[in-house]
């Protein structure tokens, strides 16, 4: 990969931190798109903006840890050159930009709307609002041709206690020939609610973008706001954030390892893992006053201090997990009927995770080395010892194993965090500055990106990019050639966020 400064040349924007934002020409924009398509850079996010005029922003990373930049193209005529044409992972972003802002990606391979399902009172809610069409057009699913194919529509209301979305399966007998997702059912218009909100309210919105990753969203949003206003959270706050983030990771991994096994009808693992998850949530409640630790991370620091006596609830928890978890790993690994379901099922090829820049266990189970805690990295993880597990098989089993290994790493991290927890203040006051910031955090699911523009104590624009944007499309690839009955298993092994994606 080349250095980004060679690829992205243009006019740098003042007050964008900690990485540069550069206003580029349409030609440079195309150049960045082809650099990403050629694998010389990785797409991190693509979103629209309306301030004085319309613009589109594209966050990319280069080869080295800190080589990140945002390329911005102003689009006074309401169009921009499609990134999705040379680089398919950008297609859904562009469809969303078109549905929300009315900006047209010229040359885009797919012109169908995304997130806009035809139920709003308007078109282009974040752009120049237009009345909706008189008749809601039927959505054109991609065609499938062949003998004896049948379609199975699933959702938006699913059979389990899960979020809504629509899956259109085309099957030949039991084998899935094509899966097409249609998402957007839980679109709440978070970005429009963010615009003009004060920072306190905006942080609450960020924390409710995807409830299972509320801590990670809190951290990513705080990173972005702190960068924009040029302040730093004190060391103790950094450690407490990391402690919450690792507890959140443990809770989600336990819940999902059990749920994956449950989708293979192995409820014993589900019961045991569910018990571990509950104990993590109870420890979180006693340390931070909320089972999911919602609203505990705030821009500038954390909301409340950790009670010293509650630390024993964490050390007790760690001891209990270390006693119980190894036998559950053994149970998972030794049960042939369960292995028969997970091994070799739902394979994602490494070329796809590289192309999509997929993070989290989806990327790491298919050979992509990535973890926002390491790259670009943020405190206190630069001072902690941990490794990022990686496998190459890319199947359901590999995604389970990545989570098992991450549980072990999180336990070791919590040991270090407790041992080294610094004293001192838990928050820095924000200075009401004006600026733009980009922040990352590693949720249990992968890297969360937050970009924010603040003006005093208000957010004027905020974009939140869930790791699921780069994982959902890979689920369509993973299920191809598998049987319909293995879809719940594949889906749970991804556990993509609907709410985080739909915004």
């Amino acid at each position, binding site marked *: 990969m080349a250095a980004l400064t060679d690829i992205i040349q243009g006019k740098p924007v003042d007050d964008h931190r900690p990485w540069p934002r550069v206003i580029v020409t349409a030609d440079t924009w195309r150049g960045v798109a082809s650099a990403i398509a050629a694998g010389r850079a990785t797409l991190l996010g693509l979103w629209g903006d309306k301030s004085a005029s319309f613009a589109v922003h594209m966050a990319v990373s280069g080869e080295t840890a800190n080589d990140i930049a945002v390329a911005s193209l102003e689009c006074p005529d309401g169009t921009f050159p499609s990134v999705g044409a040379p680089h398919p992972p950008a297609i859904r972003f562009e469809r969303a930009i078109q549905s929300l802002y009315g900006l047209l990606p010229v040359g885009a391979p797919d012109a169908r709307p995304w997130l806009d*399902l035809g139920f*709003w009172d308007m078109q282009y809610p974040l752009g120049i609002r237009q009345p909706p069409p008189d008749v809601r057009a039927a959505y054109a699913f991609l065609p499938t041709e062949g003998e004896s194919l049948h379609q199975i529509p699933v959702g938006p209301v699913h059979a389990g*206690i*899960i979020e809504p979305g629509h899956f259109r399966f085309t099957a030949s007998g039991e084998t899935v020939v094509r899966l097409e997702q249609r998402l957007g059912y839980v679109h709440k*218009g978070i970005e429009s*609610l963010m615009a003009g909100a004060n920072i306190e309210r905006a942080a609450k919105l960020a924390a409710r973008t995807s409830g299972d990753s509320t801590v990670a969203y809190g951290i990513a949003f705080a990173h972005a706001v702190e960068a924009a206003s040029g302040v730093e959270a004190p060391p103790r706050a950094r450690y407490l954030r990391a402690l919450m983030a690792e507890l959140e990771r443990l809770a989600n991994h336990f819940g999902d390892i059990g749920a994956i096994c449950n989708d293979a009808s192995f409820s014993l693992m589900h019961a045991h893992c569910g018990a571990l998850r509950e104990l993590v949530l109870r420890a979180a409640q006693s340390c931070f006053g909320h089972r999911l630790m919602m609203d505990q991370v705030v821009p500038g620091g954390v909301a409340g201090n950790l009670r010293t006596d509650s630390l024993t609830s964490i050390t007790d928890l760690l001891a209990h997990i270390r006693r119980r978890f190894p036998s559950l790993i053994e149970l998972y690994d030794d049960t042939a009927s369960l292995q028969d379901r997970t091994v070799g099922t739902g394979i994602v090829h490494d070329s796809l995770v590289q192309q999509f820049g997929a993070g989290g266990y989806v990327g790491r189970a298919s050979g992509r080395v990535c973890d926002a805690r390491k790259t670009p990295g943020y405190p206190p993880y630069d001072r902690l010892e941990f490794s990022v597990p990686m496998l190459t098989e890319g199947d359901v089993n590999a995604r389970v194993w990545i989570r098992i290994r991450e549980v072990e790493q999180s336990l070791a991290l919590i040991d270090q965090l407790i041992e080294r927890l610094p004293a001192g203040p838990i928050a820095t006051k924000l200075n009401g500055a004006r600026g733009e910031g980009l922040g990352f955090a590693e949720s249990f699911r992968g890297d969360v990106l937050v970009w924010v523009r603040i003006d005093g104590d208000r957010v004027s624009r905020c974009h939140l990019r869930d790791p699921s944007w780069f994982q959902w499309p890979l689920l369509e690839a993973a299920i191809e050639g598998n049987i319909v009955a293995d879809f719940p298993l594949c889906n749970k092994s991804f556990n993509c966020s609907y709410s985080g994606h739909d915004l």
Partner: protein
Amino acid sequence: MRRTLFESFTHGPLTEAPPSRDDAALAELMASLERSARRRLGRSLSIREVDAGSCNGCELEIHAINNVFYDLERFGLRFVASPRHADVLLVTGPVTKNMREALERTYRATPDPKWVVALGDCAADGGIFAGSYAVAGGVSAAVPVDLHIRGCPPPPTEILKGLIALLEAQK
């Protein structure tokens, strides 16, 4: 697997026993839940959960009431896969405009008599998402609601308490 199963014999269940007498509130809760559920529905209260736009936080705590500590099913309450098998719709989230029709259709597919429980602060009035172009409002913006359980998200014991209140109200 054998070892894990054998351990269950020696360790006993994790399920928290119906609480001790001094824990009056919870004891009352569990006793009344069991009594009223049986009397009214003969152990057959079936719940269909519908996420109408939630952030997924409420779903996590609904899952929790199914875990071995709370073990919802011992009270005769259970989650079912289809609205056609349900007595109760447990609805979370602000109702997004994109989900309103799906929620209404789910409601119509649920046989009478039926009750709707709106779970979480967003389900009450749209919560923090109220006022968005994409949000219709609380659950009552789409279907009639019999009970609200507040919280963001409500912890498992609050969810249990709310389900009892519903049963009591139907006496």
